[in-house]
């Protein structure tokens, strides 16, 4: 039979067949998914390994491991000083860095005129956020430990200024630039139409910020604060320099009181305990290391979860 002209159906059927571009698209999707998968696999492997190593500790001693003190004997060594120290340092960072960072960001974003000077300050805050944390440790050692040692608190003589205040201030200074940057970004994201509306009915700058800008920016500010505090929670190097205890020999006098604990007693934090456990020669300390890592992760996730819940509730309330 002679070749007849193809019908429209035939032409369309041929032209609609999956071609090279479609396969390329599928290939890219697969490759991207694989990269995601591989990074997840690494994380999951690490986590599974840690859990497996930590299990014996929790099976034998349960949660009492978390609530007993440091010791050089593997069977009785706990991490309570680290848990308390880390929580205290976190609270210190929240109390010091959050208000300071928020206030500084409000000034930079809302009040400061756009001058060469402001731009210079902004650029330097960004630089400070990128400074390695060990540098802040040295700053903490020279500034806070020495200052405190040289008589800011007269009770600090016994520990030479290596107290929670020095560690907390060091971490606060470390995270302050990040706090300022995230808060400033949250403020910048507030639509200018809201500001205009507020000024338009005769509000002052502060009334506008307090009643309209901050409520809108608050969820994003909290997100930034949570990330920042998480960073402080995991820091090790600056605390080594700022005088946190790195050994099993650790004693806090029972009658120290609240301010005594802050100023008069040695302190340590979970990351330092993990580091210290990890460098012990006895094999059993490997299990303790893994168990401590799990405790650190759980604490970190709980802090994040609480903050996220608080933020979501706040957002819901704002929507009315």
């Amino acid at each position, binding site marked *: 039979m002679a070749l007849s002209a193809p019908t429209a159906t035939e032409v369309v059927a041929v032209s609609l067949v999956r071609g090279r571009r479609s396969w390329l698209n599928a290939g890219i999707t697969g490759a991207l998914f694989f990269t995601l998968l591989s990074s997840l696999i690494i994380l999951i492997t690490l986590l599974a390994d840690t859990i497996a190593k930590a299990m014996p500790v929790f099976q034998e001693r349960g949660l009492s491991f978390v609530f007993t003190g440091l010791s050089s004997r593997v069977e009785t060594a706990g991490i309570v000083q680290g848990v308390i120290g880390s929580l205290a340092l976190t609270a210190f960072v929240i109390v010091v860095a959050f208000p300071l960072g928020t206030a500084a960001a409000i000034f930079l974003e809302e009040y400061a*005129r*756009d001058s060469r000077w402001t731009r210079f300050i902004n650029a330097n805050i960004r630089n400070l956020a990128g400074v390695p944390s060990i540098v802040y440790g040295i700053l903490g050692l020279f500034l806070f430990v020495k200052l405190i040692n040289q008589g800011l608190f007269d009770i600090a003589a016994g520990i030479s200024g290596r107290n929670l205040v020095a560690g907390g201030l060091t971490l606060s200074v470390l995270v302050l630039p990040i706090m300022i940057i995230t808060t400033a970004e949250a403020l910048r994201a507030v*639509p200018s*139409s*809201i*500001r*205009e*509306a*507020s*000024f*338009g*009915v*005769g*509000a*002052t700058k502060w*009334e506008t910020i307090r*009643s*309209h800008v901050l*409520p*809108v920016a608050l969820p994003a500010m909290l997100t930034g604060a949570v990330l920042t505090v998480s960073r402080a929670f995991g820091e090790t190097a600056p605390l080594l320099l700022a005088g946190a205890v790195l050994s099993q020999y650790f004693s806090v006098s029972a009658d120290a009181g609240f301010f005594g604990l802050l100023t008069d007693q040695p302190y340590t934090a979970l990351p330092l305990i993990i580091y210290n456990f990890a460098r012990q020669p006895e094999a059993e300390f490997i299990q303790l290391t893994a168990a401590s890592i799990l405790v650190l992760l759980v604490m970190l996730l709980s802090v994040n979860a609480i903050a996220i819940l608080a933020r979501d509730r706040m957002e819901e309330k*704002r*929507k*009315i």
Partner: protein
Amino acid sequence: MTMVDEIRATPSESESSEPVGARDQRANPEVPASTSQPVFDVEGLSVHYGSFRAVKDVTLPIREHEITALIGPSGCGKSTVLRCFNRMNDLIESARVGGSVRYHGVDLYGDDVDPVEVRRRIGMVFQKPNPFPKSIYENIVFGPKIAGQRGNFDDLVEESLTKAALWDEVKDKLKDSALALSGGQQQRLCIARAIATNPDVVLMDEPCSALDPIATLRIEELMLELKKDYTIIIVTHNMQQAARVSDRTAFFSVDVNDGGQRTGRLVEFDVTDKMFTSPTETETEQYITGRFG
């Protein structure tokens, strides 16, 4: 056929359909050539943004209980001029205002004038509806509260929303978020918010440009209602709207210099009917008949 009818018959790019009944809503054509003291007296006004001159040499009086429309092509500085009336330009750091804007005889740019007090008396409605992300009720009471009013605001909320022709639609959901309202309702809420502080003047910066024709008609009816109590200045790029609602119209045009810089200037200011039927300047005539702009 008068020229007004002609331009009404020409569909504009921004809003092609003319709201039904708009003709009956016409502003009173018998605007007296009043000699009473104006609410605003603008003289030799110029605005710079940095070294860029946005508007030069604007002189016009704004009279009480009238609607004054500022029209002109994009970039002619009509919004810039509007924002001089309540010192909104202060919010732009590089803006500098020259000449004088007198409000009941007082120079708004005088040294001891507080822009916050100015904005309490001279309210503003913006191009895009911008209610606060709060309840309808809170949107209304924010202004009076910061102005120091205390006590129960329920009556004020009802009065403001009624004046803005929104009360019946929202009276059962005052505690609901203002963002749940439609665009037209949001804009009427913004008008209610502006009049809740009991201002003397209401500035409107293209208040209908984000709205559909029916919502536009409602806002226009509202403006005609509001001018009994307030003096209104409206910026619009919609000539039909200016013709429908305003008593007087100021036409701005834009000059482009050799460097490509665009500077707005006032071409003509007159009673609206005259502007649209027998303008003095050929530039005005060309613009309102759609030959440029």
